[in-house]
């Protein structure tokens, strides 16, 4: 026998629990109004996770709407599990980036590993085979033992999951700053390939259609993970470890194969992975998107532990699980596929026309909630935002060069933010699948070919948080522009981005001001560069004991190049001429030179002139595709001389440099971080300069590549051996990780 209505909690107890689950008194009053009574424990659990910051985007939604999301090549913008763009030949790239910051601080290995697992599911849920993983990582002061422990665990976790599941990890970025001491950022991105006409969504339709659960069994892990991820850390963060899930990449691999096998049939109506808030969010969102009702019988849910309550099952974040709506009568066919892959398969409910989610367990109705108001009445906040005051520009006269150009270069290439990331990428399988044309460190964007075609994807992740902190709007612009530039520097055409907005506590006006400013800048850059946002994720409350991280809107960029063989890397080629494209003013404000050499973090960040950015980038891309460009590297952190040094180290080829133009101090010329610039190694410098002049693009010869091995020869004859530079560049991270 089934009881007709859920058992409400006693009023006082319900209000107290609601507060513990993170609902404000006003939000709880809305729950009462929607239900017309006090909620049951399960219902309260459903409301609290669906209305958590993590699931509802209640503080960020009003701002996110300002981002451009359309272009002729966009097939699916934000709102689904991942974004989808057309990439030619009837194919689509499906991609998204997502944070796993809070779990990675509490338990670095599993936090990072399940971050990779979650984003993979978001992509193959849409019918795409994952072909590449990237990441964007931020850690605290590298001298702290805690930072080393977290970095080591995160790298092992990303590798452990990605390597095992057989998807290459092809790119990423890492920054260090004390602002991340108590709150590292782990943003994982997956890119998949699907047929453009075979994209699956989470929109459930068809009254009576079966609701099917596949994948791993449900356990008690990760209960209230979404709530945990929607609050700041206090000093007792360690105690939150039970909210972190455990990854099982082998099951994920089986799940990918089984889902793609079933997707090759026409049995699936809708599908969604069980990510944050597990069974709750997947069932509520699928039914909600289709305007349906849904009934779940939790007795049918495959369970790993005995005696689980409805509340526990609905809030579990056990990994490697998916929910699907099948066409009627297709259960047996689908079940056979999942059994073949040794995965659990269970019909756990039906779609209804009631517009309600009804959850039964052991003959009792544990929840009965109208779906429309769960979404339409969800809290939405335009929180007070205090603009970050514009910092005064740095007075160039106030920053004399204390050490000289050669010594500054040696120190910069060995600084934590610029040193070689080889120690990290050597632990990621970057070649599995056999399509990685340009591996980590070989080009400004990773180049991953589409199997059987010449066409390739160009992939990158970028953000410069110190710029965002100083001037959120310019920083937001720069993050998008740099992703666009990195793709352009390979010869590929940038198409779209995914964003991962990592910020502090949105209830503080200055944090909301950072968020709003970054969005404004990003939106301007997306529009100017035809580089829309098609998916994304917001991670707020990145604070520990009241200290916020730097604002970090990490950008994952995707581009396409018709012929992978035309893509260029950054490795210098002997005998080439070096040409700098873009204008150099010697902007030292917020530069790494200023921080690492002068010991100051101040001034305005370099402004991004979006018209110049577009013009310079379009010129560079056209020249690469026209041939004759042997290497290309954008000028970013550390400035021009660091860019040239990186090219020389990558190719193990020296270079002789010409004197800077008059009027700019040498250190400002070589280490300023002016935007919109590229260094090209070309066979015919004069031809490139002529083409640039004709296109109205600033360009100047800055030197000539030398011989293999060799040295960087500065104007005036000072020679810096590549061997010495390499030692400074590559020795740092291994030494740091060994505590030296």
């Amino acid at each position, binding site marked *: 026998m089934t009881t007709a209505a859920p058992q409400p909690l006693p009023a006082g107890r319900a209000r107290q629990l609601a507060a513990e689950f993170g609902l404000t008194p006003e939000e709880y009053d809305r729950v009462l109004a929607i239900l017309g009574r006090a909620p049951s424990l399960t219902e309260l659990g459903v409301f609290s996770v669906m209305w958590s910051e993590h699931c509802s985007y209640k503080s960020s939604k009003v701002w996110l709407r300002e981002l451009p999301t359309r272009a002729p090549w966009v097939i699916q913008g934000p709102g689904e599990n991942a974004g989808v763009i057309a990439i030619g030949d009837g194919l689509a790239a499906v991609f998204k980036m997502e944070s796993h910051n809070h779990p990675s601080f509490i338990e670095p290995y599993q936090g990072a590993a399940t971050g990779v697992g979650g984003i993979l599911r978001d992509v193959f849920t849409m019918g795409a085979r994952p072909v590449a993983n990237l990441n964007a990582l931020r850690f605290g002061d590298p001298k702290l033992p805690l930072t080393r422990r977290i970095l080591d665990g995160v790298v092992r976790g990303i590798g452990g999951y990605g390597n095992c599941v057989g998807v290459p990890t092809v790119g990423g970025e890492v920054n260090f700053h004390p602002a991340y001491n108590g709150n590292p950022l782990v943003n994982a991105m997956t890119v998949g390939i699907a047929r453009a006409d075979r994209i699956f969504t989470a929109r459930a339709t068809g009254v009576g259609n079966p609701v099917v659960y596949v994948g791993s069994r449900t356990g008690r892990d990760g209960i209230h993970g979404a709530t945990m991820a929607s609050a700041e850390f206090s000093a007792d963060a360690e105690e939150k470890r039970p909210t972190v899930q455990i990854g099982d990449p*082998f099951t994920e691999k089986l799940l990918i194969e089984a889902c793609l096998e079933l997707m090759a049939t026409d049995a699936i109506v809708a599908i969604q992975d069980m990510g944050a808030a597990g069974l709750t969010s997947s069932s509520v969102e699928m039914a909600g998107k289709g305007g349906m009702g849904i009934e779940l019988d939790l007795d049918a849910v495959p369970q790993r532990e005995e005696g689980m309550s409805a509340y526990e099952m609905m809030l579990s974040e056990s990994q490697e699980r998916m929910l699907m709506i099948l066409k009627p009568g297709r259960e047996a066919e689908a079940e056979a596929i999942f059994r073949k892959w040794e995965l659990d398969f269970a019909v756990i409910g039906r779609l209804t026309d009631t517009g309600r989610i009804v959850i039964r367990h052991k003959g009792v109705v544990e929840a009965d909630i109208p779906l429309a108001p769960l979404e339409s009445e969800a809290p939405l906040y335009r929180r007070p935002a205090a603009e970050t005051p514009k910092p005064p520009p740095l007075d160039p006269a106030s920053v004399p060069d204390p050490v000289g150009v050669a010594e500054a270069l040696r120190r910069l290439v060995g600084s934590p933010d610029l040193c070689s990331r080889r120690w990290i990428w*050597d632990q990621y399988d*970057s*070649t599995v699948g*056999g399509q990685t*044309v340009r591996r980590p460190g070989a080009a400004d964007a990773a180049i991953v070919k589409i199997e059987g075609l010449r066409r390739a994807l160009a992939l990158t992740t970028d953000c410069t948080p110190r710029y965002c902190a100083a001037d959120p709007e310019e920083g937001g612009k720069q993050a998008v522009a740099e992703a666009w530039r990195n793709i352009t520097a390979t010869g590929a055409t940038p198409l779209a981005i995914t964003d991962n907005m990592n910020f502090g506590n949105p209830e503080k006006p200055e944090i909301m001001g950072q968020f709003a400013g970054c969005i404004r800048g990003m939106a301007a850059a997306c529009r100017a560069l035809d580089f829309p946002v098609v998916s994304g994720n917001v991670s707020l409350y990145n604070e520990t004991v009241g200290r916020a991280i730097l604002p970090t809107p990490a950008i994952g960029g995707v581009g396409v190049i018709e012929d992978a063989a035309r893509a260029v890397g950054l490795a210098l080629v002997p005998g080439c001429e070096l040409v700098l494209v873009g204008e150099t003013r010697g902007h030292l404000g917020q530069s790494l030179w200023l921080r690492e050499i002068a010991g100051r973090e101040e001034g305005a960040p370099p402004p991004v002139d979006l018209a110049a950015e577009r013009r310079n980038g379009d010129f560079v891309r056209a020249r690469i595709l026209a041939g004759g460009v042997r290497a290309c590297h954008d000028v970013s952190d550390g400035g021009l001389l660091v860019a040239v040094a990186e090219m020389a180290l990558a190719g193990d080829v020296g270079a002789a440099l010409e004197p800077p133009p008059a009027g700019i101090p040498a250190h400002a010329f070589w280490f300023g971080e002016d935007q919109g610039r590229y260094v090209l190694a070309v066979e015919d410098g004069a031809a490139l300069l002529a083409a640039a002049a004709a296109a109205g693009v600033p360009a100047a010869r800055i030197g000539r590549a030398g011989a293999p091995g060799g040295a960087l020869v500065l104007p005036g004859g000072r020679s810096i051996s590549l061997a010495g530079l390499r030692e400074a560049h590559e020795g740092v991270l291994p030494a740091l990780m060994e505590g030296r």
Partner: protein
Amino acid sequence: MAIALERAAGRPPAMLFHRETELPRGTDLVVLAGGFSYGDYLRCGAIAAHSPIMRAVREFAARGGHVLGVCNGFQILCEAQMLPGALLRNASLRFLSMDCHLRVERAGTPFTGRWQKGAVFRSVMAHGDGNYFADAATLDRLEGEGLVAFRYCDARGEATAEANLNGSARNIAGILSPNLRVLGLMPHPEDYVDPLMGGTDGLPLFESLVDALAAAPA
């Protein structure tokens, strides 16, 4: 791996599911490709060595069939006791994904016919458990019988300690069965069969196999 086999042989290989029990009629080469069978949750390859299809693979090898095991495939061959020794955790205790150089120690086998002894080629390694181990007597026997196929070396061909990235006994990267028809190796020669993907250093292994199998009686 399938791409490399097709490139060398001119036709795609048949893919078998682990629960199958028979090889297709006319099979002349079995390849155990890389990958994390069963997640490597137990010892790498330990569970896959007991997959239903492995009985057929073992019988095929016993009849003189050619078998190539790369990375996880090498681990499976060792766990199945089709090759001696074991692959331990890398000495650094970290996953290693990077280029390495291999020196051909035994030419004239079905896998190395296109190389001269002492030839050096570039390959990709991507493994956490590639540290080859066997007792001294086994190592002496392998060396004495010329069953070491490849050793880790530097670009000049010196089998130095620095070039032995995973800490393998005597720099051993790949070994052969006594009849020279079963090869296991940790690095991935199949990753370098196309100039676009970084080079064709690994192609001779597959071309050698095509030569050998074309010459072998069906």
